[in-house]
């Protein structure tokens, strides 16, 4: 019995030692992966989404690179498209005493956390998604509603060119989930089209913006209904999914071809640009995504230097003279060399400043522009 107990204890002890070693090694590994804080540098907390393909990669990496250029201590957390999680993340930044916060609010639920940051004298700058509280210092992005509206204009122009013998046109609207950006792109497009007498949105189908869901949902719809004259897809991956569906149904044809279905959308990108070049997508309104967080950081640095007066004011127009960028070498290109974000119109919405960057209309004539994020992160 004693020998058996000894064997059992020895076995347990050796397992304990093994587990302790793993735990210790893991702790060392985890500690090694932790960001290091420089006590003298500004500490900026960033709450954003990290899932979404090439666009998000450009958005995220550009911010990280610019922060490093500026010597900023930069901590990014992902909100995983969960409002409660983003609320916690922002409150955590406040509790940790960060100097500033940059956030891409998932929805209005985050406003209260932003208010708390403001109460703690921590400035919050939003990017890509605006938020609706007046506690935000500035919001920087292209206007989603404006992009939707421009897509509407481009849709009508392209329909009239493609189907010059028709007086009326039908359009299928492929939208995303019901978040801020998606709702704004849908509303902007719908409001413009509703004002046109000759264009009718025959249906709106909803996807989760993933390529797979957009493809399968569009394919299902087109299998059961007449093909429309035009399709409005509401983001990069949605557009790719739509084109995949057209391809599978043998409905894809380039512009000028009799069977071409006009396609416009917000967002170009590495996989969208070839489709534009080949004429399958007529036009995209692209975002200068690789400038959003850098612009917010520049505004933040101006704010710390000269306060609220240093921030752009509603009615202003800002350009590369106001926010210059020193290009850096990245993936064989000069990142930020071409200020395609400019000019940006400054407006007021929901009690705070919106810096609405230029949206770049991408067609087959300029799809090779090296300043487009899709040609840098391609």
């Amino acid at each position, binding site marked *: 019995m004693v020998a058996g107990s000894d064997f059992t204890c020895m076995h347990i002890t050796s397992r304990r030692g093994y587990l302790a070693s793993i735990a210790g090694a893991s702790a060392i590994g985890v500690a090694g992966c932790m960001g290091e804080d420089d006590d003298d540098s500004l500490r900026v907390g960033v709450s954003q989404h990290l899932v979404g393909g090439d666009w998000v990669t450009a958005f995220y990496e550009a911010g990280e690179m610019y922060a490093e250029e500026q010597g900023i201590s930069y901590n990014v957390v992902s909100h995983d498209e969960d409002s409660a999680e983003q609320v916690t993340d922002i409150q955590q930044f406040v509790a940790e005493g960060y100097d500033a916060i940059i956030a891409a609010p998932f929805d209005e639920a985050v406003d*209260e956390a932003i208010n708390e940051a403001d109460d703690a004298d921590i400035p919050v700058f939003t990017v890509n998604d605006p938020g609706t509280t007046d506690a935000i210092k500035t919001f920087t992005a292209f206007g989603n509603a404006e992009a939707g509206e421009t897509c509407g204009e481009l849709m009508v122009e392209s329909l009239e060119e493609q189907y010059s013998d028709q007086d009326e046109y039908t359009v299928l609207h492929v939208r995303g989930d*019901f978040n801020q950006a998606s709702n704004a792109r849908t509303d902007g497009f719908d409001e413009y089209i509703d004002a046109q007498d000759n264009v009718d949105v025959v249906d709106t189908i909803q996807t989760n913006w993933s390529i797979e869901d957009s493809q399968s949902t569009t394919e299902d719809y087109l299998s059961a209904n007449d093909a429309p004259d035009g399709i409005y897809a509401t983001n990069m991956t949605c557009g790719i999914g739509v084109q995949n569906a057209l391809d599978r149904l043998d409905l894809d044809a380039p512009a000028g071809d009799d069977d071409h279905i006009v396609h416009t959308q917000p967002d170009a990108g590495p996989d969208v640009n070839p489709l534009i070049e080949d004429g399958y997508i007529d036009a995209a309104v692209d975002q200068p995504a690789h400038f959003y967080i850098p612009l917010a950081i520049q505004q933040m640095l101006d704010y710390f230097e000269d306060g609220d007066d240093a921030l752009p004011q509603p009615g202003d127009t800002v350009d590369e003279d106001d926010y210059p960028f020193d290009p850096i070498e990245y993936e064989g290109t000069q990142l930020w060399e071409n200020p395609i974000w400019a000019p940006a119109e400054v407006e007021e919405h929901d009690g705070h400043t919106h810096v609405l960057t230029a949206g770049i209309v991408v067609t087959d004539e300029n799809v090779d522009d090296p300043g487009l994020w899709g040609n840098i992160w391609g």
Partner: protein
Amino acid sequence: MSTSTIIDNQLERIPERPVLILLDNMIWPILAVISVLVLLAVPRVFTNTATLRLMLFAAVPLGLIVLAESICLLSGHFDLSVGAIAGFSAVFTAMVLAEWSLVSNPILGVLIIIGVGCAIGATNGVMIAKFGMNPFLQTLAFFIIFGGGKLALTTQPISGLPDGYTAPGNNAVVAIGILLASFALMAGIFRYTQFGQAVYAVGSDEESARAVGINTERTIILVYTLSGFFCAIAGLMLTGYTGIVSPNIADDMVFPAFAAAIIGGISLFGGRGKLLGALGGVLLLSIIETSLNVGGFDPTLIEVVNGIVLLIAILLYNMKANIRKQVLSAGAGT
């Protein structure tokens, strides 16, 4: 066997008891070890009281959903619809209060959200117990129905809720108190009442439980109703936490709920585990996630780390069963 031999044998077994107790409550030493490691690597998780308070506050909704799931698991059943019940009951009640304006009294609002959660939970229980539906399939169906049902009710966040309704979830002390009280109450019920014993018995072997006179149908229905109740409370806490109800509220909570329950020692096969252990699982997941966020860990790797933690916990629990067997057989051999 002489009296002295019996006594000697008992004395020789004493060292095994602490080991067995440790094994049955393994989450707590694991939590202690992880806490020490976090204290060394990212001390401000514990030294900054605001961070610590926020970590516990943020864990309340998940903790209540873990409690709901653990109750089902102990009875030997799954509930995949826990997040959907929490979300749907929150959205429905918010619509009643703010969009349809049918009710403005916050107390009535609380009763409504609880009623919705219990009704859905009870329906799960009836379908499984009375009609023999497979628990996995039944709760999967409700996961899809009520998860989608939120969108059918609204595509926009709902605000303008009565202050009294959001107050419990908006106050850290109250919310954390509700979480701890819920776990304490249910742990007491499961330990000291016939109902609790019946749940364990059903979870261990439903046929045998029925054979000894336990009303297994009623037990299962009550289990799922309780699960729905705590899911509704989780929905109420989430509503107060954010102040508005988003259409995606409580999305993606079912798998973290399973993870925390398993890490806390609740058996996937029923009949084993302690509810307070599940609370330990929630705390462990919260500490790890908070330390990774606060410590500036690469955000693209956080999910991977969470998964590795879950895997380690599962390996430890596999070893626990073997160690337990060895300890018991070593004791029996004396």
